[in-house]
């Protein structure tokens, strides 16, 4: 009978961020839909109330259905029967409940039978679902693919496919191939155009495709013969109703076992082009991946939340040497750090989400009318921030979720190593977050531009100027000191003008910036609500020491050292 939204006041806290007024007003275009749709909000407060009430439904489904099913789903896994993927029984129950509750097209416009919610409540739903079952969120969260169709598909495609997703059909994004993983430019799956039929056909193999047997798949394929790089790739929609795909196998995985990971073979599979040819990787996959990375950020935060809760419950219950183990400094320090990393990554999640929300909505508005110069500038500002915050979030939150799952299992001692406690599953599920949708190392490649262009530094300078309560000023001073140290260290590396040397230290530099940014975010949270003080204190003092270590390492390093690592 738990409600995973109501039992966690931190969620409501982030939902009620002051910037939501702007986000909702942009998203609802002056609340014009209310004349046409009986479920559209009347005004800002009404929209926020709807977000809250719908999140409460999700919280209830998670507490009553999804979380209790998680263990069996993990044990049961998935099967292929007659060339179709069959989910675990619990997975199907989860989907049925979410379909009945109308939660499959949360961000889609109402004219496509979606809820037209902003991204923040959708990502919050993903945060909650991930706490309940991190494997399941992969199936449900693929409604992201609909966002890509909504952004780049034509009106006819939107009309035909988006309503199906709103009403419960699942999706997949088929990008990876055996020889094209991190390097998607190497995609080989062939798309050929049949002039007489005026139709595209797909031939080839995709691997590691989450929910590869979904109703509607977005497929990246090589449409331009004779090309070998990203500019020869286009994006296609494949409809499962065509039955032109063989599900060759599903992977036997370390974690997220309820989520089917498929190897699929396209054989003369009819498909529809999305948008324009050659833009598949350069534009559409980038958009799709940014959405997916935000989703993995939410998944990581949800897993951290689950790990934190398991740690607390166990540490309070387990008695050794005559008292609950939570009373020992070695244990309560670990728990406080789990919570600090959880709070820091959740704060970065919603900060990133708000920026994506604003620029994406402006982008959609620009299709309806031309934006004012002021609006254009604002869209650009938020888009730029989203571009370097998204990989930072994905990288940091997924690494933290792994650390948190590790520490939580450690607190469980030998019991945590057994299948008897949920942490064993949570620990396995966490592992993938820092790998898929681009490894942490690739997030660093994307985020390092935020370091070299000073985008992170400029954002931090903005944060410095935001007024704080007197009692928080000492923390601001620590962060200011860390910022000077960071700027100095970046300069040291950039002065060498050596790209390999920059790559070598890139992760350290990105993390230094990330630590400062998350430190500020926790201070702003504490400014709004005292209960984040502990996390702000623990986090800022922890990352101060970590940044000193990184700065020290870098200042003692030189290009000549690289030979010892090669």
């Amino acid at each position, binding site marked *: 009978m738990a409600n995973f939204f109501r039992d966690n006041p931190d969620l409501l806290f982030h939902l009620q961020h002051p910037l939501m007024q702007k986000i909702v007003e942009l998203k609802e275009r002056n609340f014009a839909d209310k004349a046409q749709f009986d*479920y559209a909000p*009347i005004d800002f407060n009404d929209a926020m109330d*709807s977000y809250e*009430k719908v999140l409460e439904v999700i919280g209830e*489904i998670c507490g009553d259905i999804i979380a209790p099913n998680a263990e069996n789903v993990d044990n049961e896994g998935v099967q292929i029967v007659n060339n179709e993927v069959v989910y675990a029984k619990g997975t199907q129950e989860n989907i049925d409940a979410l379909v009945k509750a*109308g939660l499959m097209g949360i961000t889609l416009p109402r004219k496509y039978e979606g*809820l037209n919610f902003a991204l923040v409540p959708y990502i919050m739903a993903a945060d909650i679902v991930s706490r309940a079952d991190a494997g399941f969120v992969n199936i449900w969260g693929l409604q992201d693919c609909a966002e890509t169709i909504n952004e780049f598909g034509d009106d006819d495609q939107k009309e035909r496919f988006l309503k199906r997703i709103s009403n419960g059909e699942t999706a997949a994004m088929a990008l990876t191939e055996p020889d094209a993983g991190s390097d998607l430019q190497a995609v080989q799956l062939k798309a050929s155009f049949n002039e007489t039929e005026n139709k595209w056909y797909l031939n080839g193999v995709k691997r590691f495709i989450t929910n590869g047997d979904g109703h509607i798949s977005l497929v990246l394929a090589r449409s331009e013969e004779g090309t070998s790089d990203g500019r020869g790739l286009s994006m296609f929609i494949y409809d499962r109703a065509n039955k032109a795909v063989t599900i060759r196998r599903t992977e036997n995985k370390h974690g997220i076992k309820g989520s089917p990971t498929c190897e699929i073979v396209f054989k003369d599979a009819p498909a529809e082009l999305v948008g324009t040819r050659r833009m598949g990787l350069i534009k559409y996959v980038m958009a799709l991946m940014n959405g997916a990375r935000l989703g993995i950020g939410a998944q990581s935060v949800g897993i951290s939340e689950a790990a934190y809760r398991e740690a607390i419950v166990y540490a309070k219950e387990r008695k050794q040497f005559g008292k609950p183990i939570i009373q020992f400094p070695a244990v309560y320090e670990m728990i406080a750090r789990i919570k600090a990393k959880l709070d820091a990554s959740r704060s970065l999640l919603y900060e990133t989400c708000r920026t994506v929300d604003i620029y994406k909505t402006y982008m959609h508005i620009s299709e309806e009318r031309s934006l004012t110069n002021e609006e254009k500038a604002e869209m650009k500002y938020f888009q730029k921030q989203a571009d370097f915050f998204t990989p930072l979030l994905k990288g940091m939150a997924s690494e933290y979720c792994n650390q948190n799952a590790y520490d939580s299992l450690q607190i469980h001692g030998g019991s945590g190593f057994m299948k008897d406690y949920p942490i064993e599953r949570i620990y396995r599920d966490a592992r993938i977050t820092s790998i898929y949708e681009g490894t942490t190392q690739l997030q660093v490649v994307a985020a390092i531009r935020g370091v070299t262009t000073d985008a992170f530094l400029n954002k931090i300078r903005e944060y410095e100027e935001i007024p704080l309560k007197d009692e928080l000023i000492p923390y601001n001073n620590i962060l200011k000191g860390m910022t000077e140290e960071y700027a100095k260290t970046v300069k040291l590396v950039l002065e060498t003008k050596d790209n390999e040397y920059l790559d070598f230290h890139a992760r350290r530099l990105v993390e230094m910036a990330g630590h400062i940014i998350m430190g500020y975010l926790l201070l702003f949270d504490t400014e709004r609500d005292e209960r984040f003080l502990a996390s702000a204190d623990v986090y800022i003092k922890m990352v101060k020491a970590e940044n000193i270590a990184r700065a020290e390492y870098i200042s003692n390093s030189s290009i000549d050292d690289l030979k010892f690592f090669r």
Partner: protein
Amino acid sequence: MGLNIIVLAKQVPDTRNVGKDAMKEDGTVNRAALPAIFNPEDLNALEQALRLKEKYLGSTITLLTMGPPRAAEIIREGLYRGIDKGYLLTDRAFAGSDTLATSYAIACAIRKIKDYDLIIAGRQAIDGDTAQVGPQVAEKLHLPQITYAEEVFSAEKGKITVKRRLERGVETVEAPLPCVITVNGSAPECRPRASKLLMKYKHARTETERKEQPSCYDNLTSQRPYLNISEWSVNDIETDHKWLGLNGSPTKVKFIESVVFQAKESKKLSDNDNEIEDLIKELISNHTIG
């Protein structure tokens, strides 16, 4: 062919997770300390009605509840899940009703609703645990009744086929329509609230609610009549006063004893799974745990 279904539901104090202040000094239920919820088996009943509505196109569901003004929440919960209309039967004249007076008032309200093929109620409410109201309504309306229903197989061509859960098994029975069925807790759980319906109906309120706690969204009701929840007082239905409320309630509480559980007898279990499972089942069924 569509069915006209009436669902009977009750708002009850949540007696499942009681704290130490759940009872007052005098041994009566401290309603203020317990959250008011949709009676669990009435939710099972509602789910059966919703399934029939999906199966037989053109069906309608009307939810009828009797209680204080705040019981309008039960009707909203029904609207969020797919009922078409709700009536709140509320009046001081109904206060103090036992099961006989309750079923009398409800039967009178059903006569006023008039067109119905099927009446579905939960087996019993968790506050009184009597399981009498559903059967008494059937008697008063001279309708056949099927109790302990777990699944409705079909309801067409003037008859209904229902699976019943008995103590040691199940049986499938048939009855002519219209009839009353009461649904067991072992029937499928009720579906979650549907988000679009939740947003559509969240401003639905009774006149009393609009009067007592005005909201800035009340003016919507004039353009959206479905946002008005109908309240029926004793004057809206045809009744004989002598059967109502305390007057119509032969059940009198003589005294209430506060029972404190004490360990009087002990039971020895061996360490095999079956015996442990039996104990768990026993403790759940007598509400010691759950």
